[in-house]
Structures are given as structure tokens and as C-alpha cells.
């Protein structure tokens, strides 16, 4: 189980770095779908191994919402507006890749210095690294889709962490969290669409979201 956890964790880290590298929104969204798929499968396997029904339900919900529904919604949205290319970056790509990498190391150092003594889970720095990377993705791109994806990466890593480190978290809490997040994504979808509409009135700023 630990190997699987480490494998998925580093795959997530690599996928975020890959997202930082990409210029095209479509690829970023597909990458996000893959990362959700990995998390969902991990939860599923763990639920199966531990005979934990709530984890399996959680995995199914994750797969349904994150892997299927949200990327599908975003992609269909993209085709309509034909806005595949990510327009504006606050930080240049090379720098953001390196910063993303440094965050992984920062997470490791923080984890080793503070948390490790109290949790004593070997690979516990991985979810923290992914959370930091998600925050950085939100900061480094000026695009509503990418910001939302960055936010969802943070949530993914939380599920990842909660699922692996504390699998016995009360189900009512986890379900509440998941429903909340689902609602949040829907609402942000609405606001995102509104933003797009209000901006697209100005022809010059057609493919430019303002941060």
C-alpha cells in the first residue's frame, strides 16, 4: 500500500509540473482528469483492501465528479468558446516549473522538521507538496479554468492525505466535505461563465480573463 501511495503521490507531483509546462488549456484539463483518476483508483483500492465502504463510496464519487463530470464540463465549455490556449501567465513557464519543484522540497523540509515526529508516516510530505503546488498553480496563472483546477488539485491532495493517513475519518464529515466541494465547483462554474460573458463584450480582451 505504501508503494502505491508513493507512486500515486509522485505521479500527482509530476502531473502538476506537467501542467505548469503546458500552454494549452485542453491538455491541462485532460491532465487534471488523469490525476483525479489516479486518486480515485487509489481510494478505491484502499477501500477494497480495508473493507471500508465509505472509502469506496468516496472513490466512486471522486471518479464521477472529478474524473468525469468536471473535465467534461470544462472541455465542452472550451469548444464552445474556442479558447484552447491559455492566454496569460503571471510567472514565466521555466520559473514556475522550478518554483513548483522547490515547493516539493520545501514541503519535505517542513514535514521532516515539524510533522514527522508526530505523525510518523514516512511519505507524509507528498500531500503537503501537492497542496503547495496547487496553491502555486492558482497564483501563477491568470486564467479562471487553471485557477479552478489548481484549487481542485488541492482538494484532491486532501482526499489523498485523509484517505491514506487517516482512513477512519467520520463518513458524515467526508461526505459533507465532498458535497460542499461539488457545490463550490458548480457555483464557480457559474461565476466563471459570467466572467467570460462580461469580458467577451469587449472585443480586444476576448481571450483574456482578468485576475
Amino acid at each position, binding site marked *: 500500500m*505504501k508503494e502505491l501511495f*508513493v*507512486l500515486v503521490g*509522485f505521479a500527482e*507531483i*509530476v502531473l502538476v*509540473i*506537467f501542467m505548469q*509546462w503546458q500552454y494549452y488549456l485542453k491538455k491541462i484539463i485532460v491532465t487534471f482528469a488523469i490525476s483525479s483518476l489516479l486518486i480515485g483508483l487509489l481510494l478505491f483500492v484502499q477501500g477494497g483492501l480495508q473493507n471500508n465502504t465509505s472509502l469506496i463510496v468516496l472513490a466512486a464519487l471522486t471518479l464521477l465528479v472529478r474524473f468525469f463530470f468536471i473535465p467534461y464540463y470544462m472541455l465542452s465549455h472550451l469548444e464552445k468558446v474556442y479558447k484552447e490556449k491559455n492566454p496569460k501567465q503571471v510567472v514565466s*513557464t*521555466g520559473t514556475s*516549473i*522550478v518554483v*513548483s*519543484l522547490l515547493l*516539493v*522540497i520545501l514541503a*519535505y523540509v517542513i514535514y521532516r522538521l515539524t510533522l514527522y515526529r508526530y505523525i510518523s508516516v*514516512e*511519505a507524509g*510530505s*507528498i500531500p503537503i507538496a501537492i497542496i503547495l503546488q496547487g496553491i502555486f498553480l492558482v497564483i501563477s496563472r491568470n486564467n479562471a479554468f487553471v485557477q479552478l483546477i489548481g484549487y481542485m488539485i488541492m482538494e484532491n491532495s486532501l482526499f489523498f492525505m485523509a484517505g491514506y493517513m487517516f482512513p477512519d475519518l467520520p463518513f458524515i464529515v467526508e461526505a459533507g466535505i465532498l458535497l460542499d466541494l461539488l457545490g463550490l465547483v458548480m457555483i464557480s462554474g457559474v461565476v466563471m461563465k459570467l466572467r467570460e460573458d462580461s469580458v467577451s463584450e469587449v472585443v480586444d480582451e476576448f481571450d483574456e480573463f482578468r485576475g
Partner: protein
Amino acid sequence: MLYLLSVVQLIFVVVFAPLVVGVFSKLCEIFESKQGPSIFQPYYDLYKLFRKQSVVPQVASPMFQIVPYVTFAMYLFLTLVLPIITGFPLSFGPVVDFIGGGLIFGAIAGLKKLAAIDSRNNYSHLGVSRASSIGALSEPILVLIFITFGVITHTNNPYVVNNVLQTSTSWYLSLVHWFVVFAFFMALIVETGKLPIESHTSNEFGMIDQAIEMEYSGRELALMKWGGYIKQFLLMSVFLNDFIFPFFVPMKVSLVAVLLYSLIHLVKLFVLVLIFATIQSTISKYKLFKNFEYVAVAFSFAFLAIVVFYATGGRL
């Protein structure tokens, strides 16, 4: 015995290096639905160039003429110290380790650049500046990879690395190893000048290494080219034997085993060349400034390898 094997290895590399290049260009052409040149074309080219007259720029110093011979000799030296068809150190094996090999590669690159600047050709200068700026970023990747190997095997000796990976399944399957493999693969593409980084066409937009030997002709050009082939052969062999597929390499001194393995090694090389050719014909070239992003990703892989090692609880 070891001396004999050294000579065998030297001849093997020097003879088959152009063949690998020939196969590569043939495969690329086949991918584009063309017939392509014969796989022996590089040999013909070298033969032709050796018979041609050399022209040297008037302004160039004697160094310009010396460098091809020196670099070729250095490549020959490198063939004697890397695990190519043997998994045990040959006579010269103990002379250098990975870092030393890297330094010799660096020295060759430096000499070539100096000679290119010496030729006072504008395109050469362009190539030198491009190669230097990418090299400045890709060298640290190689250093990081070697450090990671130091972490795994407690040594920087390429032969030991090969033996450890061949015998220890847990290391071979570890995430650390595969991150290193991926990082080295990306670095390999940079070093051998393959597609997303460099395209070998006659316009100056994409040229990097190609521009460096612009002013050479005749025998000097032949040696430069041959040296380049050997470099590619060596790097690919190292990638195969120390990184991705260290198996079958004979670990005991035996002439028959070594001769048998040299055939297997050719097969391994051709498979790798096939992969390269596939990449070459499916990917388009990056803009020059996007190369740095590519290098940054390769760097992250090399660095992540070390992070993985520590994050999963590894201790020295």
C-alpha cells in the same frame, strides 16, 4: 585478456558508431514513407570526406586544426572506460568514474566551442552561444543524476552501477531509479541533438551543435563527424547499460560472453534508435527559448529522484 577486450571494445565502438546513425536516418525516412539512404551512408560520407582537401580559414589559429584530432582521441579514450560490452572494468576502467567521464565530455565540448569561436564564422558563434546557454542548464542535470547514483550504489563507478542494477530487483524497480532514467532520457535528447530540441536542417533557426563544425572540411570534418557518432553511441550505450536496461551485460571475464553480448548490445541499440526515430517523426521542434522549459522539466525529474529517495525514508 583485459587488454584484448579493451581493443575489442574500441574497435566495436569505432566501427559500429556510424552504423547506428545510418539506421536512425533510414528509420526516420521510412517513417516519412520515403525509401531513404542506405544504412551504410555515414561510412560513405566519412570515406569521401577523408579523401577531400581541407580548407582552413585564414584568420584561424593552429588550434582550429588541432582540435578535431584531440577531441577524437578523447572520445576514443572514453570508449575504454565506460561499460559498453562488458560489465567488469577493463584495463583503463579505474582511471575515471562517472564524474570524470562527464568532465571529459565537458572538456570535449569546451574545446569544440573554442575552435568554433576561433573560426570567426558568424554561424559558429551563434551555435556556440546557443550550445553554451543550453549546456549551462543541462550539465547540472547530469551532475544530479550522478549524485543520485552515488546515493543508490555508494559509488560513482559506472560498472558498479550496472552490476547493482542488474542484480538488485528492488533498486531496478524503485521510483528513484525510474525518475533518474526519465531525467537522463530527456538529457540524452538534448545531448544528442534530437528533435524537440534541435533539427538538423540547413537553416540557421534550429541549429545548435551543427553550427559549431561549420568551417571544417575534409579530414577534420570527417573526424568531427565520426567523433559525434561515437559520442552518440557512447551516451546511448551508457543509457542502456547503466539506466534503462542493464541486463545481459556479462559480469565475468569471458571472451565468448563478451562477443555474444556485443551482438545483443547492437540489438538493444537498434531498439533504442527505433524509439528515438519514433519521437523524431512525431514531435515538432520547440521554439529556441522553449528549450529552457524542457530543460527545467528534465531538471525537475532529476531532482525529484533525490526527493523520492528521502521522502520514502531512504537513508545514506
